[in-house]
């Protein structure tokens, strides 16, 4: 079963139909999704800036983590839930874009690295090593890419041209 077939059959599930039936639900879910992106991204950024010594340098890193991590994880959970519902509501629009597929992969990397960082931060409160600084900069770049790709879903063919799977659907970017 191809991804396109999965997306198409998802579209006709009763949950998908129910989500689409309520006209204000998709905009509402998108709004919550964007608000949570703000919470998640700035929480991540605050921790990253602390590692780089650019913010709250006098505050121990574990303390900065304790302040922002709950916002990061809670925001991420709500973001994932609203994102999942949006995908169920419009599976073809989401799954059949390159932007969405790359975004999901990057998101998995982002979550795994945050979890690993969270485990590490509790054991080692040592000053940031060169390696950690690079990792943190890479993490910021990763989340930037996730956000930009999220918006690119709506413009998949303009962004990716022939690489976009939207083309194979006869240009129907539902």
């Amino acid at each position, binding site marked *: 079963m191809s991804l396109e077939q999965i997306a198409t059959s998802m579209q006709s599930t009763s949950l998908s139909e129910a989500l689409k039936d309520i006209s204000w639900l998709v905009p509402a879910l998108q709004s919550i999704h964007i*608000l949570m992106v*703000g*919470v998640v991204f700035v929480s991540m950024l605050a921790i990253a800036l602390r590692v780089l010594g650019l913010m709250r340098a006098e505050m121990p890193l574990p303390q900065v983590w304790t302040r922002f991590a709950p916002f990061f994880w809670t925001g991420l959970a709500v973001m994932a839930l609203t994102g999942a519902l949006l995908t169920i509501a419009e599976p073809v629009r989401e799954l059949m874009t390159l932007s969405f597929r790359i975004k999901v992969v990057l998101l998995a990397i982002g979550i795994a690295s945050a979890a690993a960082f969270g485990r590490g931060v509790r054991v080692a409160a040592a000053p940031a090593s060169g390696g950690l600084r690079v990792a943190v900069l890479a993490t910021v770049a990763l989340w930037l890419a996730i956000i930009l790709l999220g918006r690119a879903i*709506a*413009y998949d063919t303009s962004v990716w041209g022939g690489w976009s799977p939207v083309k194979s659907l006869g240009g129907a970017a539902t």
Partner: protein
Amino acid sequence: MNPPAIIQSIESSGIGEWLRSTEIAMPIVNSLHVLCIVLVYGSILVVDLRLLGLRDRARAVTAVSTEMLRLTWAAFAGAVVTGAMFFAANASTYWFNNAFRFKMLAILLAGINMLVFQFVTYRKVEAWDRNASPPGAARLAGALSLLIWTAVIVLGRVIGFTKGGIEVIVPTDEDFAF
């Protein structure tokens, strides 16, 4: 119904024309707009939660606002520039869009709330800088800010689903553009 001449000339300006005719322009402008907006919202949230006395209670209010507000302002500037580009590309559509009008009104209210806070409440910040729970006026400013900026984002999203002055939420085009 025609929009005012100024709106029409913004739409037919070179930049408006360029934005409409360049395929990659709007995806880039749109993505950057979202990026700026989430930065504005997330950073203001940190300050608002401190004003409300809900987070960073042991940290000076001035320290929290100083560390965050540079990011907020830089991101807000970016949001204004990219937002103006949206407007230039489809000025008359935005002009007649109620969600757009309410969004601009909400941004204005956010500005007034901020000015009142800045020039009245914040002037005496030394007196309550280290208070775990700031005075009522500061907490009110924080709550209003949170509420208004949330509304700004919701209204921004509603613009993408509405056309002209129609209040019913209908998807306007295939990409649900902002």
